[in-house]
């Protein structure tokens, strides 16, 4: 492979792509959605008043902070044992049980336990806002990571099992936007880069030039990778407070990139014109994005079907890595994504050879 030829093709595509309104739209859509979401939900909080049941026998600073927080209505529970019942009875978003020496233990660095009840019958947005609020309040107590151990207890376990617990609102949105970015690259950008060369007959020029078919395809793939990294990087930097494990998140995105670029090459090899790409891109994008949406209450059959979509495993790996989990919990998901990438690359090679 001639690297200077590949670089020339990538350079040309990087500049030319942003002059193509279809490609430009595909590239900026995830950033636009992220911006829109920030405008609609500043700070990720819903606008309704949240009721929180608090049992605080030691009058700690955290219950005072909660009471002073905007949009929050704090109701005191008589004992720790009745906190969960009060949450259900008052239909509150959740409850907090603060131990007697909480403030002193936090100051001493003992990481005291803070029991938090979450009402899973409330909307996902409210639950996420509640979780985010508690995490922020605890972090603000001392300038040290994890001043206390947060013990999350689901009030309605049955609903909880169906929900996506443990993630804040932004941490739920971020995987969706990242999958959208990768999906746009795989379903639109890479196929269009190839198909446009066929449609405008510029592929004939490239094939008559010193560029081989392999180098042309590598140049296109590299363009897809460059744009994915740029947009995914921007999304991660804008949401850096929600990235728990940077190295693992980066590796997960790289694995996802391999898959979508290979898938894009397959589409670009099989399809022949822009209209076909536009038609198929929508369908492919819906399939790729579906597993990254919160899926409460979906029929079991659909839940099962989603497990056949590689982005299901990519979404799970992203959620775990963004949540701060290590490789021990994500390797299975990553292995599936990597395996699917190899299959997609093999399919791309087959499709391109068949074309030639």
């Amino acid at each position, binding site marked *: 492979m001639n690297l*200077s*030829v590949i*670089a*020339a*093709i990538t*350079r*040309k595509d990087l*500049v*030319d792509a942003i*002059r*193509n309104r279809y490609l430009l739209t595909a590239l900026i859509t995830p950033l636009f959605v992220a911006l829109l979401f920030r405008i609609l939900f500043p700070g990720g909080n819903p606008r309704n008043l949240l009721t929180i049941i608090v049992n605080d026998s030691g009058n700690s600073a955290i219950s005072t902070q909660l009471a002073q927080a905007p949009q929050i209505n704090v109701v005191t529970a008589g004992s720790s044992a009745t906190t969960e019942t009060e949450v259900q009875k008052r239909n509150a978003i959740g409850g907090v049980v603060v131990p007697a020496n909480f403030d002193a233990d936090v100051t001493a660095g003992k990481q005291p336990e803070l029991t938090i009840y979450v009402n899973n019958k409330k909307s996902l947005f409210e639950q996420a806002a509640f979780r985010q609020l508690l995490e922020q309040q605890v972090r603000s107590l001392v300038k040290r990571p994890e001043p206390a151990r947060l013990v999350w207890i689901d009030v309605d376990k049955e609903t909880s099992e169906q929900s996506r617990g443990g993630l804040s609102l932004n941490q739920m949105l971020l995987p969706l936007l990242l999958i959208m970015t990768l999906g746009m690259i795989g379903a639109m950008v890479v196929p269009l880069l190839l198909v446009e060369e066929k449609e*405008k*007959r*510029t592929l*004939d*020029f*490239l*094939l*008559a*030039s*010193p*560029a*081989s078919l392999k180098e042309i395809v590598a140049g296109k793939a590299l363009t897809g990778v460059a744009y994915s990294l740029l947009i995914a990087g921007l999304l991660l930097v804008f949401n850096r407070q929600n990235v728990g494990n940077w190295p693992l998140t980066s590796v997960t995105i790289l694995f996802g990139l391999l898959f979508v670029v290979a898938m894009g090459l397959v589409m670009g090899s099989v399809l022949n014109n822009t209209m076909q790409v536009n038609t198929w891109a929508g369908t492919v994008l819906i399939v790729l994005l579906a597993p990254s949406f919160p899926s409460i209450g979906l029929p079991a059959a659909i839940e099962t079907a989603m497990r056949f979509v590689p982005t299901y495993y990519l979404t799970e790996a992203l959620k775990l890595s963004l949540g701060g989990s290590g490789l021990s919990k994500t390797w299975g998901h990553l292995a599936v994504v990597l395996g699917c990438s190899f299959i997609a690359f093999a399919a791309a090679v087959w499709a391109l050879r068949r074309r*030639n």
Partner: protein
Amino acid sequence: MNAIEVEKLSRAFNGLKAVDNISFAVEAGEIFGFLGHNGAGKTTTIRMLSGQLLPTSGRARVAGCDVINEQRRLKPLIGVVSEHQNLYERMSGRENLEFAARLYKQNTQRVDDVLEQVGLTNRAKDNVRNYSNGMKQRLLIARALLHRPQIIFLDEPTRGLDPVVGREIRRLILDLSQQGVTIFLTTHYMEEADQLCCRVAFLSEGRIVALDTPANLKVAHGKNAIKVTLANGESLSIALNDGDAGEQLEKLVNDGQVRTLHSAEATLEEVFLQIAGRELSE
């Protein structure tokens, strides 16, 4: 020395033979015309000879390189002007050439030189989508010349162009030939082939049905006669191999009966019609 050598070359698509067992050779520096109706196999032949498409059978050497096994060595030695105006329309003329220059490892001075050669220096920064057909065609030729190829394949280079631009392109082709570049030309325009080509091959249904100089083809398939239009509007044909042809003609001229005299030699179009059995434009 031959610039192109083709031996029993064939290419089939889904069992249908687009090019069927053709053999010919093109000398270095020659302008070689490849003529045929739509679908005769002209473009498929160019695509095989330029390394874009693998033959089904047969062999060909272009600029001394095997088109199947030596493509990497071959491609810098040839230039191709496609029948389609396959330029990057969102890019400027200069950007198109700069991209090609990076592929062929040429410097920007060479880009300036070819822009000057085809008369596009003043419009180099304009987007190609704003170019006229003639300008696009000149840019295509500039792109094909950028790396100083030994052989240029021109697939219908004047199709759809107005007569003035067509004449400019033909002049450019002759200039290139004078510089020693071998030119493989396909065209629908018989007059163009007659004017430019040292030799022409007629292609019909994938096979070469005639190959010679335009002059020889016209003599071989035309009448050896003179067509005379008389002053009274009547016309008659005088066969030159007739013993008293000179006397007949002299008498008519002396009597002041001759309005016009024309050679009855066939045109290339008529020769093609006789050989291929149908008009070139069909």
